[in-house]
């Protein structure tokens, strides 16, 4: 594809249903009321010159380039700020406005460097374009007067420069930061000639800028330019693809110059992001070409041996032979596989097919096990399907937003920007979280209630909200009567009314005042549109599944399900968590969440796959590790997941990995898990993949190859080859063919094909003959399961309690610039913002222990200890400490336990009893058995 330039109509579209007819330059135009004259003209193909206007921002009317004449109106109004009126007659090209525009442009150019031929934006500059459009031929004022041509360039940000000498003070960057990103890091300081853009009086790096790139994208000149464009030149072609970081699943234009990727620009037509991005997706893609990439297969007999580089045939043949030998010795169920939420649907599908058909068992699980498996369980029990209920756009209709156990501004930043936009215009906000996340109080946003509960008491608090709703007669009885199972509701109502579920009882152990819980419940029930958004702070608990069901109960009881602005919305951690679950990665389910014991379903798979499949569930990831330690499980294939860093109780995980006779790792890098591997199969980055990702709103997006595969093939071909070597031939000509098989076997995907996605961009499943273009909102007229099923959700305290020995509770999470175990982001310039994990500790806890800000501390739990620097912070309450898990050298999961959710075995990462003590030795002597593994990996190669 040549360089994709999306149309820019200058001002946002109007959503009015009332249409207005006007005439522009003799052309009749019909547009929704509220549309600007500029947009109406543009939609009719009559572009009006502009500089300060762009259709992602509200009209501003500062550049005076878009002046027009309108019959019956005095003067020359700015077309961007003038709404259409019925019968309006507009003239965009008259001698008067043409002269005015030239005069305006003359002033701009008189204070602008005349270095177009050497400017990095040459050919991609709106100022340059507009100078041509208005016919500027001379600058009568000369260039010797007072100007800004010597203004400095701020190069502090690792990804873009701010060249102040080229700024025309159009405020597009400032408005993008305000309106799109919602950070308000930029402003215009000074007046008149002294007006200039400022990052809050400091440089960009030291400012509150979050490097989302919205300002760079909005800039009509070379003032804000990607360093990659400055270095490599303006790109010449585009490939549309999907980001591989979080579960928002942003669409991007990968812009290349020849075969070299120059920049990633968010796609305006992307359903998930609509033209916005975050620092990871926009800029942190350099890991794909990092020298640490391993692109040749390797094998070794023992994990103490050095790796031997071998051919693909040798590696596949060796792996297959060893797998079969192990099965012959230890039984068919002694091996299994783990799929990755970072891989495409097609790659995940072939791996689970390989396990079920070639391994001959159901021992396949996915890394969603350790994040959102309770979402699948809880929503299936209550609503009938394992997915979120809304699209992201829905938040724009929410009147009350409840954020539980999620930190969207760090972990799902592009969705957070949508949410903040709604909050800034008045939606009410309730945050339920042990930490004071940014959303609690940020520019123009303040939570009405922050229920700062003690980690592990989620269920009690949400039950107490439900108790209030029932107790105070706030139930939407009509919704419940029409949409829900009456008997289950009656039973639930009796349960939730019990005194132990009251806010007053809950207050004793949750730490949340009863009055606050009652008030929050009233706000949620009053809506009228109340939406719950949640993250791993809900799921990664011993009652993760109970909590998901408790939230679903709350939504059903108040009728907040089945329309825009409401719903239960999981914010998925990784790019393809939803997809990996959809693709049959769980040991008990085929694609589309159908149980392996369902004979009718299983026979469909058996018929198409030509083999007999097991009807019993297989092992989950924690079961695999337990079985490995006890000697029953002997071989594991791990696709794109670093279990040795990401899974809890690392000592137990390492014991399991060490006990395996064969560990096959497929990844981009020699990660922590690869240290225990016998076969390493290189994988592909998202920039090389051809396939689809499914995001948190069930949106299936195309992932298209931007660069040639560095391993010489698509990643799914590796699993096909291994399966074939195992005696179960698996062959596809393309990823599209795999999707065709998925569609043939999966009712919710039956309408999905690459051809459809290429045509319409994306669809949200279910996509089938009933919903040929997908389903943005689920459960509109009825729940997937029929009647909504209220579930009893007793609060059962976790076994993980603070004690005299371990008196603090540790909870973990992500930071904006880093992603999960950091395998990708640590190999980018994002380390400039976060070069190590630190431990947030409240001042009172620190003082009690003699801990100073920035000093090394030992973090110890009953299963292990590690060392990191303390960061004294009032974001955590006394008694709670917090850290991230982005660096292997810190090894935060050395201390987390193997307690897990009762229904799904999702680990309880969010509650670990710990003690923190001063550490005079630093990390080397106190991190239990861990070291700088990247350095070791390099040596071992």
């Amino acid at each position, binding site marked *: 594809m040549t360089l994709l330039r999306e149309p820019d109509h200058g001002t946002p579209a109007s959503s009015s249903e009332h249409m207005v007819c006007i005439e522009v330059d003799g052309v009749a135009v019909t547009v929704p009321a509220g549309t600007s004259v500029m947009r109406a003209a543009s939609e009719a193909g009559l572009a009006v010159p502009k500089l300060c206007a762009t259709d992602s921002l509200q009209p501003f009317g500062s550049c005076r380039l878009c002046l027009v004449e309108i019959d019956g109106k005095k003067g020359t109004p700015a077309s961007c700020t003038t709404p259409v009126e019925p019968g309006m007659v507009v003239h965009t090209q008259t001698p008067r406005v043409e002269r005015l525009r030239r005069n305006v442009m003359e002033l701009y150019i008189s204070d602008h460097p005349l270095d177009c031929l050497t400017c990095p934006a040459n050919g991609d500059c709106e100022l340059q374009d507009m100078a041509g459009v208005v016919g500027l031929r001379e600058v009568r004022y000369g260039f010797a007067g007072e100007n800004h041509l010597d203004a400095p360039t701020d190069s502090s940000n690792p990804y873009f420069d701010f060249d102040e000498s080229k700024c025309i003070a159009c405020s597009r960057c400032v408005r993008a930061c305000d309106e799109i990103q919602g950070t308000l890091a930029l402003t215009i300081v000074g007046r008149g000639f002294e007006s200039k853009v400022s990052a809050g009086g400091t440089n960009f790096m030291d400012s509150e800028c979050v490097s989302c790139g919205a300002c760079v994208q909005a800039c009509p000149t070379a003032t804000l330019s990607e360093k990659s464009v400055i270095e490599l030149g303006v790109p010449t072609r585009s490939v549309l693809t999907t980001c591989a970081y979080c579960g928002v699943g942003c669409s991007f234009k990968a812009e290349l110059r020849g075969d070299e990727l120059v920049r990633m620009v968010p796609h305006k037509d992307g359903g998930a992001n609509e033209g916005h991005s975050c620092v990871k997706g926009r800029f942190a893609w350099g890991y794909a070409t990092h020298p640490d990439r391993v692109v040749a297969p390797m094998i070794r007999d023992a994990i103490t041996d050095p790796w031997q580089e071998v051919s693909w045939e040798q590696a596949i043949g060796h792996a297959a032979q060893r797998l079969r030998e192990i099965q012959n010795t230890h039984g068919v169920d002694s091996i299994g596989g783990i799929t990755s939420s970072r891989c495409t649907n097609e790659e995940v599908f072939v791996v689970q097919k390989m396990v079920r058909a070639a391994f001959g068992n159901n021992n396949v699980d996915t890394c969603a096990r350790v994040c959102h498996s309770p979402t699948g369980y809880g929503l299936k029990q209550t609503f009938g399907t394992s997915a979120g209920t809304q699209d992201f756009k829905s938040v724009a209709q929410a009147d009350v937003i409840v954020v539980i156990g999620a930190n969207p501004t760090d972990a799902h930043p592009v969705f957070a920007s949508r949410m903040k936009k709604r909050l800034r215009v008045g939606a009410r906000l309730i945050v339920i979280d042990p930490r004071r996340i940014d959303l609690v109080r940020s520019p123009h946003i303040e939570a009405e209630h922050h229920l700062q509960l003690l980690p592990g008491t989620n269920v009690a608090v949400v039950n107490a909200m439900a108790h209030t709703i029932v107790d105070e007669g706030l139930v939407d009885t009509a919704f419940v009567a029409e949409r829900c199972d009456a008997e289950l509701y009656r039973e639930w109502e009796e349960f939730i009314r019990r005194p132990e579920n009251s806010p007053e009882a809950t207050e004793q152990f949750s730490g949340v005042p009863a009055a606050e819980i009652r008030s929050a419940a009233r706000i949620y029930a009053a809506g009228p549109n109340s939406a719950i958004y949640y993250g791993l702070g809900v799921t990664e608990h011993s009652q993760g599944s109970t909590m998901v069901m408790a939230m679903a109960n709350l939504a059903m009881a108040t009728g907040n399900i089945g329309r825009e602005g409401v719903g239960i919305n999981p914010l998925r951690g990784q790019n393809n968590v939803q997809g990996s679950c959809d693709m049959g990665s769980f*040991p*008990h389910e085929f694609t589309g969440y159908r149980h392996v014991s369902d004979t009718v379903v299983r026979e469909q798979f058996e018929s198409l796959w030509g083999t007999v499949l097991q009807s019993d*569930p297989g092992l*989950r990831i924690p*079961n695999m590790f337990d*079985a490995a330690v*006890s000697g029953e499980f002997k071989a594991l294939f791990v696709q794109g997941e670093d279990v040795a860093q990401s899974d809890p109780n690392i000592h137990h995980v390492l014991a399991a990995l060490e006990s395996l006779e064969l560990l096959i790792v497929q990844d981009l890098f020699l990660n922590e898990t690869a240290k225990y591997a016998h076969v390493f199969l290189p994988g592909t980055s998202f920039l090389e993949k051809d396939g689809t990702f499914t995001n948190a709103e069930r949106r299936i997006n195309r992932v298209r190859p931007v660069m040639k595969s560095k391993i010489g093939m698509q990643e799914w071909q590796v699993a096909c080859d291994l399966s074939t070597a195992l005696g179960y031939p698996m062959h596809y000509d393309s990823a599209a063919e795999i999707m065709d098989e998925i569609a043939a076997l999966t009712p919710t995907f039956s309408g999905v094909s690459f051809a459809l996605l290429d045509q319409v961009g994306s669809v949200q499943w279910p996509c089938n003959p009933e919903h040929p273009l997908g389903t943005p909102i689920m459960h509109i007229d009825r729940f997937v399961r029929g009647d909504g099923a209220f579930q*009893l959700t007793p609060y*059962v305290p976790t076994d993980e309690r603070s004690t005299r020995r371990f008196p603090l509770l540790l909870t973990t999470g992500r930071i904006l610039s880093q992603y999960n175990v950091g395998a990708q982001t640590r190999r980018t310039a994002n380390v400039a913002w976060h070069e190590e994990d630190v431990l947030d500790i409240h001042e009172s806890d620190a003082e009690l222990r003699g801990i100073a800000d920035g000093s090394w501390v030992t973090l110890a739990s009953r299963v292990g200890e590690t060392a990191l620097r303390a960061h004294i912070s009032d974001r955590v309450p006394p008694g709670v400490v917090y850290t991230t898990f982005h660096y292997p050298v810190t090894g935060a999961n050395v201390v987390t336990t193997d307690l897990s959710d*009762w229904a799904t075995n999702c680990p309880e990462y969010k509650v670990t009893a710990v003690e923190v003590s001063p550490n005079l030795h630093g990390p080397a002597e106190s991190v239990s058995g861990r070291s700088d593994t990247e350095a070791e990996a390099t040596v071992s190669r």
Partner: protein
Amino acid sequence: MLIETLVQMADQIARNNAALPPERAAARIARHLTLFWTHAMIDELQSYAAGNPDELDATVVAALQHLGADSLG
């Protein structure tokens, strides 16, 4: 697998279904085990329950009886 792990998992499932009447709790636990546990895991727990019924939550024992009284001996 370690029997301690299986017992802990089963008891945890029981505690989270304790709001149901015992018979329905047992039925639900039995269904949960069938849906999500491997046969080998269920067999191990059944064997253990046969010899150590007092070591398990009573509803778990009842659930295992639902699944196959014969194998409990």
